[in-house]
């Protein structure tokens, strides 16, 4: 069941009406049941796995709390480690086993050895990366003493499976979402209006912008299109993909936040106009914020962060981004993307350190737009690897852009279509950046607000993808 489908519309209408009529505890049971129905709609077998993750994490939290009260810190540590190991083990088996097994077999073959490595060929459960990290954040926060374990299994399972953000985030922290589940919620008219706007804007970004840009991008990246596309078409396809993936992913996040808002729940912001970032560090403070902060708090900082000298800091940064790339999928293109961003971050930190920023010297803040354009293009280089089917294809496209430049009808069509579909996005983003407020479109005076709604409605009717296309991040 995807958000951009009639089935979900009917599902949410029923759930929402029941939600508004039920008391708090009934609402939590409804959240749990409806979330499992939502998740089971993909494949009922997935429900067993998420239930296992949820119950083990809940039990682990209780065990950690119990051992900490008794002063048995070692036992608490083992409880935490066991749960982390179990969850990462499940994630590893379902998501990474076949990848590493086939890569090992390929490496052995390259060295002249024969390695008959069995493959599992299991279906990747939708959203496993998201809810695994979400459940792990609870266990780790309880172990660190940053939150108390919850005794209510229904509340905890509802927190892990909360359907608006279950399959593609935001990866919620237990400290943010779990108290909202445990405590009575208030649905306000303003919250409902904000929720409706977020859902509408998110659907527009997904169904009108992202799904139509996907047609252009697929025409170049898929099925040998790279071999025939000229340099200009390749470059413009990468730019189109940058907007496609942003609208696809941020659209989902907006819909998730909007649905949650309508239920009186505040989910964390996941995107903050990332293509207006000034540098790599700023980019990761704006793109997939829930993942970047999770990696910072549970990987980078435990590895030592920046507390053990510059070399260790750069190594930690690079490793964190490398694993962040691998989190996205079991393919070398994602690893390359992560490594690229790791290298960018290391280079940026090295440069700021060399320039003495933060040690009495302040960034002049000049050439803001030049920096934004440069950072956008650097991000697009990463997207090229992210989207390419193979590393070889990515290099081939780079070769076409820099060595086989040709302006043709395909490039012109990609440019015109990208401008057509992305123009509303750019208008809204310009408004948000100029005003410094993400809710700027809702604060417009009536005429431009009316014009925006008309553009969205006409866009839906003319170009909205009604095929219920899956969101890109579902595959992660």
């Amino acid at each position: 069941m995807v958000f951009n489908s009639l089935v979900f519309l009917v599902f949410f209408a029923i759930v929402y009406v029941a939600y508004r009529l039920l008391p708090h505890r009934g609402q939590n049971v409804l959240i749990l049941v409806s979330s499992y129905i939502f998740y089971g709609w993909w494949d009922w077998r997935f429900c067993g796995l998420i239930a296992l993750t949820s119950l083990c994490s809940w039990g682990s939290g209780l065990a950690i709390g119990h051992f900490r009260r008794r002063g048995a810190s070692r036992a608490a540590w083992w409880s935490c480690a066991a749960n982390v190991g179990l969850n990462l083990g499940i994630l590893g088996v379902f998501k990474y086993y076949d990848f590493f097994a086939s890569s090992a077999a390929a490496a052995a073959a390259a060295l002249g050895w024969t390695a008959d490595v069995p493959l599992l060929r299991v279906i990747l459960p939708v959203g496993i990366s998201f809810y695994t990290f979400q459940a792990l954040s609870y266990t780790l926060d309880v172990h660190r003493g940053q939150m108390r374990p919850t005794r209510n299994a229904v509340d905890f399972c509802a927190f892990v499976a909360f359907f608006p953000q279950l399959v593609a985030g935001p990866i919620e922290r237990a400290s943010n979402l779990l108290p909202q589940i445990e405590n009575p919620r208030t649905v306000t008219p303003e919250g409902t209006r904000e929720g409706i706007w977020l859902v509408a804007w998110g659907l527009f970004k997904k169904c009108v912008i992202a799904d139509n840009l996907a047609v252009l991008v697929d025409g170049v990246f898929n099925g040998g299109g790279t071999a025939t596309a000229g340099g200009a078409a390749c470059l413009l396809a990468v730019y189109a993909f940058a907007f496609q993936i942003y609208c696809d992913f941020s659209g989902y996040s907006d819909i998730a936040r909007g649905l949650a808002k309508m239920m009186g729940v505040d989910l964390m912001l996941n995107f903050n106009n990332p293509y207006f970032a000034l540098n790599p560090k700023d980019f990761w403070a704006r793109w997939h914020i829930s993942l970047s902060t999770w990696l910072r708090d549970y990987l980078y900082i435990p590895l030592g962060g920046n507390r053990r000298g510059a070399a260790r800091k750069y190594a930690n940064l690079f490793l964190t981004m490398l694993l962040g790339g691998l989190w996205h999928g079991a393919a070398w293109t994602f690893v390359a993307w992560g490594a690229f961003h790791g290298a960018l971050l290391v280079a940026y930190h090295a440069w700021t350190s060399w320039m003495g920023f933060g040690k009495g010297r302040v960034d002049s803040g000049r050439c803001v737009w030049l920096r934004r354009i440069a950072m956008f293009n650097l991000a697009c280089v990463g997207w090229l690897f992210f989207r390419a089917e193979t590393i070889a294809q990515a290099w081939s496209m780079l070769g076409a852009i820099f060595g086989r430049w040709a302006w043709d009808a395909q490039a012109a069509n990609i440019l015109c279509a990208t401008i057509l579909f992305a123009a509303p996005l750019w208008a809204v983003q310009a408004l948000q950046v100029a005003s410094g407020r993400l809710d700027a479109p809702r604060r417009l005076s009536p005429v431009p607000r009316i014009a925006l709604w008309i553009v969205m409605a006409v866009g839906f009717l003319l170009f909205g993808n009604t095929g219920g296309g899956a969101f890109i991040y579902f595959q992660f």
Partner: protein
Amino acid sequence: MPVLGILAAGLLGDGFWGWVDSSVPGRWFDWGRAFGPAGLALGVAGLLFAGAWRLLVGRKGGFAVVAPCALAGLLAVECAVRLSTPQAAFWLAVRSRLGEQPFMREVCYVRLEEAAGRMDSAPAVVVIGSSQVLNGVDVPALDEALRPERRAIRRAMFGMTPLKALCMRAYFPFRPGDLCATMLSEFDFTNQEEFPADWFRPYASWRTLPDVLSCMGARTCRAHWRQAVDGAMAATWELWRMRDGAREIAFHAVGREAAADAASAGSTSASGAALAAEKARGPLQRAAAEEKAFVRLTERLQADGVRFVVFEGDVHPAIQSAFRVAEKRRIRAWLQGFGSASFRYVPIDELGLSFDLGDWKDMTHLSSTGRAKFTWAMAATLQSEP
């Protein structure tokens, strides 16, 4: 804003129509239009818009103001796109960007004809049907033969079965006293696609959709409820009916790429043709929905004061299997038994035609010689109609 209006008027001349037609215009900017009545009108519109913007900036306007105004604006856009000039510009722009897409090309033809309207006051023969009719009837020659008493108007479409004709009925420019002529073979009553939403979408209307859905039956509609909703949206909104064409314009704004044409053009090998022939000889799956649709179409045409003349269609002798011959006899008996004063069935024997092998282009479509034979026979029959 007024300046933008004047500039827009200048561009909405040769420049705009050149882009519509994917051709290079004589001039991109028409100064005469920019500073003429069109420029004045658009400039005033821009001034009014800017005035409204300034008046309302800072004013608060919640859901109670924004929602109805946005809805009114959407309805205004919907009404504007239904006007004949925007329709003509749109479908011309789609047609010039289609490449090898015969179905969409025919949709553009029908929509452009509909936008132009029926000029002639003489009664007409509206020729409907599938590719068998497109290949088998030379409509300009038929028109020549029937003048001055009648004109011939083509509304045949690739893949048009009775169910699709029922859906498309709102685009048949009938007037009382007209004739509707078609060619039907046993193939037209078989199930090619259970719910052809893509075919229905450009033509759906509330005048015809209820008939189509009732012929398909509740079970089919439930099984294909998404397509039924798609049909309902298309029946309601012209913007929805335009969406397939809008995507063609959006993705080929400056014209079709040559590589895309090469990729979409099909090629038929000798072995492929033999396979197709073998499949065509095989049993055909009867579709009750098509037979119901044919009956409903006949009733609607009668109610509109239109006489329906159905010519028996034929196929290449090579695929005249025992099954097809039996099915042909069944359809013929059924159509001959139609008890309707405004319906006439013309079996192929009655036309005095015999097609030889050279009259066939392929297994189901007539060649140019076969088309000429059939067209003259059809004209002679229609001339005898009241």
